[in-house]
């Protein structure tokens, strides 16, 4: 049987089952309504933004001044179409035709002149409406974005947990971590801030341009003169600057790396008297980082300087042009103020436009990187219905098992052996002989290419992986301990820990006295935020954890290597008649096993008890003699 061609490593630009857009769409699920109503509110808010200045214009021109209020021609036509051909445009609000007196002064002017505060109040009313809508828009968009970010994080974390062993083995953890944190953040920022801003800018421009053009087309044309220039300039600028940004990131990485190494390796630095050398190395990195940041800032300075210049020039142009147009009376002062206000309202977002577009590129990369990770196929057959109370997996049978790694290297060749209930089976062999792979097959971290493995008389392919792994407790060569308390490392946090079982397991692994030695005993934190355990203590804690799981079969993959000989012996005595498979290098460990398998180059080359194996030539005897030589001094 040949293994199916599967992906275990991240492939660049490989997104199935998700495209980037569909990934974004998927993680938005549950927040879509909130998000898009937020976006719609944002557009509404942009629309309301334009009402305040209209009131100011009305006040300046038609209340303080005497120009009758007029609506833009298109609106006038719309009103006529709706209200009848006799309607003639009244004011800013489509006032009935009757209020426009023939005498030249419009009829409501005297009333407004004596009730100016009504206009002031109306202005505040507009802003209040803008504020309420703005708040609702911003809040619902952010809420949706945060919920989406949470879904992305949960999904990525869960996906990693369910990846096959092989993928996890090959994981580049720094890169993966970045995909789960920075890339999520980039995407979150985009949907929370940049996408809405993009929409808002679009609406601001889309609303402002028709209004400006309908108010005065000539002035509007001048008012928009620099806009395309600013947009193009800002876009290309941000594309260029992205490269410099990457340089900053890289140099910061180098700088942080040096600090990290010299702090964690301070003993080496000091004992080789390399302080000056390290200081010089750091100084060089520090200089180079400073120069790159400054380079970035210099570009930004140019960008902001130039775009501000264009912005002010634009306003100067509008005022000047307006003055000329005022000569022939085609515009009023109020209209000029309205123009300037609108200009200022849209110039700023437009200047940001290029940055946002450049950021959209970043988000697309980030989404792609997440999608690449999610495209790794998860492990199959993890869970399935499996109920067989009578099944006790205490015997093991390998029948002609062969296995090659996904990259094609053959590891195990025709392995057959059996282990009786309660037996202590030891496996020994040089590095790369396939010992670890053999026990990995036992809990279906890998699947054999041919042959079959029986556990308690059942083919393990019938047993869902999670059930299997609960029944067989494997302690890895380098077990990972979590940054939690000792207790939470031992017991599954979700379950109520059985104190007696926990202490019992700790006693068996000879860890109880270690834990009791700490001031907070089993509540002591492990790792950076708590105690640092020695190699042997770590291994004993890992063993405790495995024992506490009440599995039927215990498998130790060289997992007591850092424990001293006496403790090792004590632990093995504590384990008593428990059935277990032990991979070990230490002869004393091997000698006490009921049977030993000797592995070389993927095959079982010899098997038997310690006495049998050391009495006949072969790898085992050579190993025994090597260790004896190490242990023996020349002068005895």
């Amino acid at each position: 049987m040949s293994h199916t061609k599967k992906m275990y490593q991240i492939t660049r630009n490989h997104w199935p089952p998700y495209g980037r857009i569909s990934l974004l769409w998927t993680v938005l699920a549950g927040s879509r309504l909130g998000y898009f109503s937020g976006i719609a509110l944002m557009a509404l808010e942009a629309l309301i933004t334009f009402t305040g200045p209209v009131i100011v214009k009305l006040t300046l021109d038609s209340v303080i001044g005497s120009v009758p209020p007029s609506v833009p021609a298109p609106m006038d036509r719309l009103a006529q179409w709706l209200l009848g051909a006799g309607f003639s445009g009244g004011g800013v609000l489509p006032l009935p035709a009757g209020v426009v007196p023939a005498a030249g002064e419009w009829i409501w002017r005297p009333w407004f002149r004596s009730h100016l505060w009504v206009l002031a109040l109306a202005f505040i009313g507009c802003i209040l409406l803008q504020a309420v809508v703005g708040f609702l828009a911003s809040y619902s968009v952010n809420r949706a974005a945060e919920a989406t970010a949470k879904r992305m994080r949960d999904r990525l974390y869960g996906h990693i947990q369910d990846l096959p062993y092989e993928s996890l083995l090959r994981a580049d953890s720094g890169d993966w971590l970045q995909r789960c944190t920075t890339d999520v953040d980039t995407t979150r920022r985009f949907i929370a801030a940049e996408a809405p801003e993009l929409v808002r800018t679009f609406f601001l421009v889309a609303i402002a341009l028709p209004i400006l053009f309908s108010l005065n087309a000539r002035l509007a044309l001048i008012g928009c003169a620099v806009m395309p220039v600013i947009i193009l300039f800002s876009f290309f600028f941000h594309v260029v600057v992205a490269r410099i940004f990457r340089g900053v990131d890289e140099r910061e990485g180098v700088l942080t790396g040096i600090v990290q190494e010299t702090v964690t390796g301070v003993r080496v630095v000091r004992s080789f008297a390399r302080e000056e050398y390290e200081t010089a190395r750091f100084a060089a990195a520090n200089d180079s980082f400073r120069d790159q940041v400054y380079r970035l800032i210099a570009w930004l300075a140019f960008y902001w300087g130039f775009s501000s210049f264009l912005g002010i020039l634009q306003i100067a142009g509008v005022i000047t042009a307006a003055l000329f147009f005022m000569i022939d009376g085609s515009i009023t002062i109020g209209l000029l103020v309205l123009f300037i206000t609108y200009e200022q309202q849209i110039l700023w977002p437009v200047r940001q436009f290029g940055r946002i577009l450049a950021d959209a590129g970043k988000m697309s990369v980030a989404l792609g990187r997440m999608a690449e990770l999610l495209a790794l196929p998860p492990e199959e057959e993890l869970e399935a219905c499996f109920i067989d109370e009578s099944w006790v997996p205490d015997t093991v049978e390998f029948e002609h098992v062969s296995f090659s790694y996904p990259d094609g290297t053959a590891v195990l060749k025709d392995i057959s052996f059996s282990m009786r209930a309660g037996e202590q089976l030891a496996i020994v062999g040089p590095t790369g002989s396939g010992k670890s792979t053999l026990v990995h097959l036992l809990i279906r971290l890998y699947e054999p290419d041919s042959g079959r493995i029986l556990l308690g008389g059942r083919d393990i392919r019938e047993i869902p992986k999670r059930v299997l792994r609960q029944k067989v407790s494997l302690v890895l060569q380098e077990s990972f301990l979590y940054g939690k308390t000792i207790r939470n490392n031992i017991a599954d946090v979700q379950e109520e820990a059985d104190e007696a079982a926990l202490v019992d397991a700790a006693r068996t692994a000879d860890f109880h006295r270690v834990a009791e030695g700490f001031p907070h005993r089993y509540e002591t934190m492990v790792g950076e935020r708590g105690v640092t355990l020695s190699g042997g203590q770590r291994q004993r804690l890992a063993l405790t954890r495995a024992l506490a799981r009440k599995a039927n079969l215990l498998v130790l993959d060289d997992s007591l290597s850092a424990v001293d000989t006496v403790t090792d012996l004590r632990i093995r005595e504590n384990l008593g008649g428990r059935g277990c498979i032990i991979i070990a290098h230490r002869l004393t460990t091997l000698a006490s096993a009921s049977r030993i398998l000797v592995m070389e180059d993927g095959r079982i080359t010899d098997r038997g008890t310690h006495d049998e194996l050391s009495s006949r030539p072969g790898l085992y005897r050579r190993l025994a003699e090597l260790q004896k030589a190490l242990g023996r001094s020349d002068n005895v």
Partner: protein
Amino acid sequence: MSDTTTQRPEEQVFSSRFNGHTWMQILRYGKMLYPRIGLLCLCMIVMAALESYVPQMTRYAVDTLVPILGKEGIEARIALFLGKFAGLALVQGSLIWFFILVAGSIEVRIVHNLRERGFARLQELSFSYYDRTPAGWIISRMTSDAQKLGDTIAWGIVDLVWGTAIMVSISVYMLVMNWRLGLFALAFMPVLLAATIWFQMRILQNQRKARRANSLLTGMFSEGLQGARTSKTLVLESGNKAEFAEESGRLRGFAVRAARLSALYMPLVILLASSGTALVLGAGGRLVMDGLLSYGELIAFIAYTMMIFDPAREVARVLSEFQAAQASAERLVSLIETEPEIVDLPNARAEGSFSGEIRFDNVSFEYGDGTWIFRDFSLVIPAGQTVALVGETGSGKSTFVNLICRFYEPVSGRILVDGTDYREYTQNWLHRKLGYVLQTPQLFSGTIRENIRYGRLDATDEEIEDAARGANALGFIRELEFGFDTRVGEGGALLSTGQKQLISLARALVCNPALMILDEATSSVDTETEVLVQDAINTVLKGRTSIVIAHRLSTIRNADRILVMEDGEVLEDGSHDELMAARGRYHSLYTRQFLDESLDVSVQTD
């Protein structure tokens, strides 16, 4: 010793009281930047003045140019006006370009300077500092704290000076144009400022909580990744996922709260600011109708009320950011000001030969917690002797080595090297004479060659190759694709434990020290590598004074002298044969811990 160094960085974020000392120190560090800062302030004031002048231009157009429109020579005046305006645009644009350059140069120099000082101090600090300060905290001080402080100071000055100047000049313009209306328009300012400060503090607080939750989450990601294989074998996945979901939910909670505050804040400030505009519109309009205010002035007033809220917001934001940055400043200052406990004496010698003889003369030592590790400890190690230290954890072996290396100094008594108190020499002198091989080999990112050369910077490629040969590392190095130029990865992560051990031995060999300190690794590598390591150790120890914290049987037996230590005392002192014959502690230790291993095997095979 200031207690801030031992606290967690996050816990003391809200040292809400103004810390004058810290800021004074920061000011002192930045002395050489004063001229630049002065220039920056000047620049910002000019900019603020120009910016607040723009509405005056509009006013001029409306009040002066509009009434004479259509009259003779108006085109020339309009052209002049446009010229002035364009000039203003050019000056303003250049000023913006210039101030960003100046502020940026200040930012990068502050960050650079703080890092330089911090790093230099880290090179001097005693081991006691490293022993009680986790690496992560030191690194975040050197990276994010320094960056944050530089950002806050440089751009804080910009916004603070610009904001204050523009608020002042706007107020002046308004009061000069019409002081009654001006006061009216400014009535909302205090409310605006107060609301802004309140909101900014709240928002920062929530953002900080969110950031903390975020870094916790990053930690969980990292654990989830590194521990995934273990989780898989122990079937912990669903528990992990639930735990993670809970934590990511907490992060969402904080983030949403911060977002809600921000969402509430902006509209509120705009509303407050607009109330000023509305007041001016209502009251000012009346004044215009009564002929007490010109048209242009009203327009300028409206522009000013719309302009003033932005600087107010900036000033309030900067103030609360300085508040937040104070924590970063305190942490950095406390690092830079931490006095090293071990300093060279003023007249310490930097030169002198060293044969390798070491003498402890009535040495007493404790780590500062009142528990004496050594009391009146005396001992002589003649030049060229290999000494194995044997004893349980806590017996004083590591302290013994720390004292010899002068990582710590005796509280009383003396340690003599070739008969001279080692305090008469510089630390650097001693360390140059010293080779040190750690229990867990610590390599630096770079190539294998660079790592071996670390032992002696002027070593030739031949010497490096010789050292690698002596340390039995040549074999595996040659098999690598790039040989000596193979990159080892961060901390040597791309090599196996055994390979790292061999390279760290080669590094010690190339240094050819008079005194070799070796802390033997406890965890075993596979038997064949073990033989290589063992053999390399024998090469490294040969012909020089060596002190070994020993775990391997053969190392102990090969030593000229064995010191059995317990509770800071030498219980037994002698060669293997002597101590075995004495049938004391060593004998029982030996039989208990090691004998079973060798006897067991030899009985079976003989």
